[in-house]
């Protein structure tokens, strides 16, 4: 019993913080590995619709994104609020999609071209007219693998 009393008299020893950097570095590496850098600044508001029968997209390096939605608030003064298409970092017209697909293909290896997917990230309030136009252009460009980007959720 005397052993315990002796320890109590000395008071609490300071907790060593020497391993704190290691812990934080571990967290850092975890985030570096699991996340991706934000590539584009969105000029359009996109809230994708909900769906239940969804699949995870694989091979992100082979995916090209087409954003469709109405311009964000600060851009509405110059671009209006009608739904627009965004490719990379700029607004685009429907006619520019074929060119966009061509440049995306050039950036990839020839072997990977058949596995390339185009992800349509459209706002849920967008009308189908613009999406149909985009789909027609993709058909013309022979980029037939598409993915309607959706959130997970039930109605």
């Amino acid at each position, binding site marked *: 019993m005397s052993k315990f009393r002796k320890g109590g008299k000395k008071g609490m020893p300071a907790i060593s913080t020497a391993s704190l950097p290691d812990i934080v570095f571990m967290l*850092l590496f975890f985030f570096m590995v699991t996340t991706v850098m934000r590539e584009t600044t969105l000029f359009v508001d996109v809230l994708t619709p909900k769906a239940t*029968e969804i699949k995870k997209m694989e091979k992100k390096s082979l995916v090209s994104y087409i954003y469709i939605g109405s311009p964000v608030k600060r851009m509405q003064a110059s671009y209006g609020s009608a739904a627009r298409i965004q490719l990379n970092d700029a607004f685009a017209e429907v006619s520019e999609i074929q060119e966009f697909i061509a440049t995306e293909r050039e950036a990839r290896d020839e072997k990977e071209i058949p596995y390339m997917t185009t992800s349509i990230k459209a706002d849920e309030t*967008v009308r189908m*007219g613009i999406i149909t136009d985009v789909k027609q252009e993709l058909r013309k460009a022979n980029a037939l693998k598409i993915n309607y980007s959706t959130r997970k959720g039930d109605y």
Partner: protein
Amino acid sequence: MASSRRGLPEINAGSMADIAFLLLIFFLVTTTMDVDTGIARKLPPMPEEELQDEDPQIHAKNIYVVLINTNNQLLVEGELMDISQLRDGAKEFIDNNGRDANSSENPEKAIISLQNDRGTEYMTYIRVQNELAAAYNELRNKAALNKFGERYANLNKTQKKEIRKMYPQKISEAEPKNIGGDS
């Protein structure tokens, strides 16, 4: 002389944690973790002009016509239908196997034809796509459970192929029309 005997003073590593935290916060802010999910579809290739009149003959009863109008209303096989009933309706149609003379002969021949208006809301369109995909997935799951005693997602490649052959997902989208006007 006195200092050399003592050896080099230890470098203070107390701020190491701060540096690491700084880096960590930088990465937290600049990166995104969202996994991209979505409904995968394959577009039909552009029709080649020479092949236009070689349309394969499909019996009208093997086609399940789904129309969506500008007001996001559904017309299924000529009748107004609520989206919540679409899944069951599609399942019944696909898995008819000739029971009803006016419905599909078998799942392999069943085709779902989807047509939307330019004014249809994207949300409704995705919901319809989702319901149709769900109908197929449920049928595939049922067949997989019957045949292999496992859900479709847990089957191996050849088993999946077999089930896919039983229930091929045939969703055809007609060329767009502009009936109800844009916007």
